[in-house]
């Protein structure tokens, strides 16, 4: 074990650690926004739209993220949409995440008793009023712990951007290994860095779940 080498490369590793955080943040925001829109549109109750949205969710949940990433990175340029490594990773992660987020929100919305929606309708509220003032706040409460769980997966999944050559944390470890050898040292260091971000967030999700749903256990 030669961790002196890792220490020497610490700024290179730190640099790509920031890149991983940046990509994670972008993907989390993108995935949440798109996922919310999908969940909202599914509430509109338009049959053909529902079918299309379900197909979207099932497609992105039913195929590997890695394949989606390749498809976007190599496929979009063929239809004259230029994507660089960041955009390919960002688009793939956003689509993938949005499918999971949409499902989390959907189950959150379904957990709200129908009476809430009916009462709001009886009070003369329109669809958007009903959704944003009555349904969404309550659904958010139920959805928050699993949502944070999805975010942890996103942070881990940014490592897949390695395969299209985006210079995030895993890629940097790979490069350092190819240049200096000592794969175990570099990979374990990087694994600990991922752990340092993901573990506190996972714990937060668990704590929220205990706090928000005391009856579940």
């Amino acid at each position: 074990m030669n961790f002196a080498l890792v220490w020497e490369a610490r700024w290179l590793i730190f640099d790509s650690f920031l890149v991983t955080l940046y990509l994670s943040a972008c993907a989390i925001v993108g995935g949440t926004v798109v996922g919310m829109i999908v969940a909202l549109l599914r509430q509109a109750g338009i049959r053909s739209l529902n079918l299309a949205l379900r197909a979207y969710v099932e497609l992105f949940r039913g195929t590997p993220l890695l394949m989606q990433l390749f498809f976007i990175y190599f496929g979009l340029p063929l239809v004259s949409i230029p994507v660089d490594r960041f955009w390919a990773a960002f688009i793939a992660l956003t689509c993938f995440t949005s499918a999971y987020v949409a499902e989390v929100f959907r189950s959150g919305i379904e957990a709200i008793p129908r009476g809430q929606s009916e009462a709001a309708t009886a009070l003369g509220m329109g669809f958007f009023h009903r959704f944003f003032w009555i349904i969404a706040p309550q659904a958010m409460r139920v959805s928050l712990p699993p949502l944070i769980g999805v975010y942890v997966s996103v942070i881990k999944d940014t490592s897949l951007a390695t395969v299209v050559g985006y210079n995030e944390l895993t890629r940097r470890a790979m490069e350092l290994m190819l240049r200096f050898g000592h794969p175990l040292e570099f990979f374990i260091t990087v694994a600990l860095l991922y752990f340092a971000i993901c573990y506190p967030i996972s714990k937060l999700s668990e704590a929220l779940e205990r706090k928000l749903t005391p009856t579940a256990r």
Partner: protein
Amino acid sequence: MAFHWTAIPRFIPQLLAGAQLTLLITLAAMALGIAIGAAMAAGRVSRFRVLRLLAGLYVEFIRNTPALLQIFILFFGMPSLGLRMSAVTAGSIALGLNASAYLAEIFRAGLNGVPAGSREAAIALSFSRLHMLAYVTTPLAMRAAWPAFCNLVISILLASSLLSAISVYELTGITNDISTKTFLTFEVYSIAALFYVALNIAVSLLLALTGRLLFPPQSR
């Protein structure tokens, strides 16, 4: 751009072979995952503090680091400790270890879900510890854990695509290979996506059927 769908059929056998390897890897990873996962779940509910701590550390470390990195550690890292494995072996073991951490949590949640009354009833009927474990706790825990177990099988099936990063020719690996050789990127990835969806549906159906057989719905 023009699509060349007619060129696709001759790659179907290769894709099928890839799908077969994907299934095999999933199966191997699940088998390893169940064995280690059960041991870890037992460790997490053990009476001994050290065991609980070690099992907890293992589970949390694996659940909070990327699977791709775990695969790299096993494939690139282990040879420096003198443990050399083929890509398929290293990848399957890495996936198995990954699955085991999630399974440990699933099993533990199942064990926690067994009502105290069932255990008390078993004690009242003077079951031994082993009998209670075999006839009361495990079956009830398995029934509770089944839906989460099924979800995990699907996510491991999808995660097996990561093995393409260490050049294993499973479904994603073979798709990349065909794509780079023929430039039929769009066509071949679309077909491969369909393969994955089909695999998903088939495995889900199989699991649902198994669930019905193992745990018939009961009236309460």
